[in-house]
């Protein structure tokens, strides 16, 4: 290949960056949002009150299910993470599949009381969208996202190789110089958070490695079940004895678990065959309790509350995988570090966006006929507008739908998500139909207005609006609404900047006409 390695790497970087760039934008946006998924979920369920209290949540959930699901096949309790309040619990009747879990799901608030909150999947839905996308079979989505991640990894490596002045230009920023500025913006957001970008991409691949690279399992094990038993503990469901026994108090088991884990909090409770004399209670350490995200499972005798022997500690490779996933998800991160994760995510989002715009910005100079660009250019240009402005607007619509949809809508969580895509779709149409510069200004303005509307709608439909939250010191709700305003400001600023840009091409043509 002629041209030398820098040129070939530049070519490669452009292609792997462009082909799935819009998907990568979505992955970055949803992933960045997911760092605050617990806070988002809290905002989207304003009916849930109280503070974080694991024991109250666990006891409330157990009490409810002892009353209403005594003969169920399994109880599942998801305890709130450090920044969450609600405990989610559900049970499975005999013969049901996990797909039906939401039929028997309920929430327990921070006081241990069952609460009827609006049906929503909250921030968790955005987190799942990050790798499951939406409207697609989950396996396909994960393959696609995995491919995008692989493209991203190659883009990072080729980007570093090609950026020959990566050290010379390290502190250089040029504003207002057209294509040069886009390149500087792309370089800055890429290089400043380069360790993060590299880490997040590689660890992202690792999180779904079992799907992408199952060949080791096939080569060393007779079947996948044997591997999972070795890696994560066999899931032997105890056999029903037929005789009943009341469950020992859950608080005692939680206390033992915390002691065993030197203070780390539990995250999940599973009770297979509840109420049976042979029953066990499995308590799994919270995913956010340490950088190694995979938590240990402790098993207790349900009737007596006595703890069984601890499972063996995982070896170095499994611990590494656990830490890699933990680094990616960032659940261990305390508040300052979490904001840093969020900022790095924003940098990554900006990196992708500036890269996409840079592509058109650079090639606009080389267009033989600026009034009629070739199809590929027009496609990229329109997709840029549709995605970079459209997806954020869609997310604002998701939040507004949470506030505005009636409580009794069937499949309410699905409708909240549908509204995300409806809002995005509307801006896609604007992006395609309007002249390019106007399309940018209009879509960015609408997106800004969308985010501005969220706190307003919040104030009008709940009693936990921005001013009330600030007054009460409810920092989660206040921060959310303030973040909406900040995003509105950012998008509005972008819209204003585009609006004021001088049309370089037009000016040049006028000069030619005069000459």
């Amino acid at each position, binding site marked *: 290949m002629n041209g030398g390695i820098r040129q070939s790497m530049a070519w490669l970087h452009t292609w792997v960056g462009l082909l799935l760039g819009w998907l990568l934008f979505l992955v970055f946006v949803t992933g960045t949002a997911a760092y605050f998924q617990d806070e988002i979920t809290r905002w989207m369920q304003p009916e849930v009150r109280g503070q974080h209290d694991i024991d109250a949540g666990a006891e409330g959930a157990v009490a409810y299910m002892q009353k209403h699901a005594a003969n169920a096949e399994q109880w599942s309790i998801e305890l709130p993470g450090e920044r969450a309040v609600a405990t989610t619990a559900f049970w499975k009747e005999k013969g049901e599949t996990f797909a039906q879990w939401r039929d028997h799901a309920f929430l327990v608030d921070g006081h241990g009381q069952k609460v009827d909150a609006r049906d929503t999947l909250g921030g968790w839905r955005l987190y799942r969208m990050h790798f499951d996308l939406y409207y697609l079979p989950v396996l396909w989505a994960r393959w696609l996202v995995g491919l995008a991640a692989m493209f991203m990894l190659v883009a990072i490596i080729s980007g570093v190789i090609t950026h020959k002045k990566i050290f010379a230009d390290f502190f250089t920023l040029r504003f207002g110089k057209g294509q040069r500025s886009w390149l500087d913006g792309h370089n800055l957001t890429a290089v400043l958070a380069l360790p993060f970008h590299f880490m997040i991409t590689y660890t992202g691949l690792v999180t779904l490695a079992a799907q992408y690279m199952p060949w080791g399992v096939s080569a*060393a094990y007779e079947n996948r079940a044997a591997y999972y038993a070795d890696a994560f503990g066999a899931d032997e469901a105890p056999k029903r004895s037929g005789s009943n026994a009341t469950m020992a108090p859950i608080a005692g088991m939680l206390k033992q678990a915390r002691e065993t884990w030197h203070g780390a909090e539990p995250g999940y409770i599973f009770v297979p065959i509840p109420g049976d004399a042979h029953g066990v209670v499995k308590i799994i350490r919270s995913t956010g309790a340490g950088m190694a995200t995979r938590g240990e499972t402790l098993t207790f005798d349900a009737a007596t509350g006595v703890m069984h022997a601890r499972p063996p500690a995982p*070896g170095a490779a499994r611990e590494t*995988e656990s830490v890699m996933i933990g680094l990616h998800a960032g659940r261990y991160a305390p508040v300052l570090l979490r904001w840093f994760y969020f900022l790095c995510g924003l940098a990554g989002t900006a990196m992708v966006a500036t890269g996409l715009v840079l592509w058109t910005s650079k090639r606009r100079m080389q267009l033989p006929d600026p009034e009629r660009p070739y199809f590929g250019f027009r496609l990229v240009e329109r997709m840029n507008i549709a995605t970079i402005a459209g997806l954020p607007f869609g997310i604002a619509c998701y939040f507004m739908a949470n506030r505005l949809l009636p409580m009794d809508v069937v499949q309410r969580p699905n409708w909240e998500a549908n509204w995300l895509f409806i809002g995005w779709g509307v801006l896609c149409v604007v992006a395609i139909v309007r002249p390019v510069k106007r399309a940018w200004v209009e879509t960015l303005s609408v997106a800004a207005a969308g985010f501005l509307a969220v706190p307003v709608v919040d104030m009008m439909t709940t009693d936990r609006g921005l001013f009330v939250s600030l007054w009460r010191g409810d920092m989660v709700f206040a921060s959310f609404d303030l973040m909406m305003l900040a995003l509105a400001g950012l998008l509005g600023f972008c819209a204003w900047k585009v609006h004021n840009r001088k049309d370089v091409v037009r000016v040049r043509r006028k000069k030619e006409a005069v000459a």
Partner: protein
Amino acid sequence: MPRPTSTGAPGARLAHALDVASRTILAAAGGYVAAALTAAGFARWLPIPRVEAVMTGMLVSFAVYAVVAIFAFAVARAARVWFWTSAYCVPLGVALYLSMHGAGA
């Protein structure tokens, strides 16, 4: 990789397109094959507990994929990369096959 100018001879443009296609296949498919074989090889032959070996192979495989993909476009002659990638994959693949189905299954 410099784009061929629109005034290039059609032969040159075809050669260039074939070169790109060849490298792309090598990077996309060859990279995956190399990564998969590496994962399987680690799983089977690393002298540590099975579950650990499988996990190590998985963790390392993506680096192999990335390296092949980069080399597919970095090296001046595509044939070289095809050669070295095949030199890695074929013996490894054969060895794995024999190990799993033939001698010492």
